């Protein structure tokens, strides 16, 4: 689990991270990357501020990873989430799961992103054109609803 207040390249991060896994063991990796769009609900988004609860956010993300590792036979699972000011096109979140087979990898990755959206204390505020701002509402009903 990592919170990053600077932009990061999710694909470069995955490439680097995989070098730390034992080669030839993980037959499957499923990854999800969420990025900031430059439009939302019909409005142009100029910037986003991602607020979090320092301490609790990390704890909740670690809990999700622990739960995923308990629920599926994973070789590893990771989450990287941006916090602070984010520009359109930048990565907001990366979730990834490695397993021997594709089923657990895909299911665990989906679990991580759905439950992260349901549980992790993070809040998005969009800066729209004309200096107006709005807090984003609505998120996910969790993995059970998928």
């Amino acid at each position, binding site marked *: 689990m990592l919170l990053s207040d600077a932009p990061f390249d999710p694909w470069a991060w995955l490439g680097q991270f995989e070098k730390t896994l034992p080669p030839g063991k993980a037959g499957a990796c499923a990854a999800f990357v*969420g990025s900031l769009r430059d439009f939302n609900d019909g409005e142009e988004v100029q910037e986003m501020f*991602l*607020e*979090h*609860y320092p*301490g*609790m*956010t990390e*704890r909740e993300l670690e809990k999700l990873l622990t739960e995923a590792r308990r629920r599926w036979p994973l070789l590893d699972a990771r989450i990287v*989430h941006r916090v602070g000011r984010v520009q359109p096109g930048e990565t*907001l*979140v990366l979730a990834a799961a490695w397993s021997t087979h594709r089923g657990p990898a895909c299911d665990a990755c989906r679990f991580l*992103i759905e439950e*992260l*959206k*349901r*549980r*992790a*204390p*993070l*809040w*998005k*505020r969009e800066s729209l054109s004309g200096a107006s701002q709005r*807090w*984003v*509402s*609505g*998120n*996910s009903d969790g993995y059970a609803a998928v």
Partner: protein
Amino acid sequence: MSIRVRYFASLRETMGRAEESLAAEGLDTVAGVWKAVNRGLPMPANLLCAVNMEYARPETPVKDGDEVGFFPPVTGG
């Protein structure tokens, strides 16, 4: 000692402050803490809360030295 109360996101803006400290006397639950800082009003139904950085409920007990967080539904990811 006292109870540290923290607010996040739109609630932080509505409250006009990110945190405050309350004397713990007479406060026994999360809902009680909320009432103490909101002129006796009940907690809004969709408001989330945490005690010592663990998700809690209005009836969760609080004690001297605890940190209580209040925040709107989360929107990360």
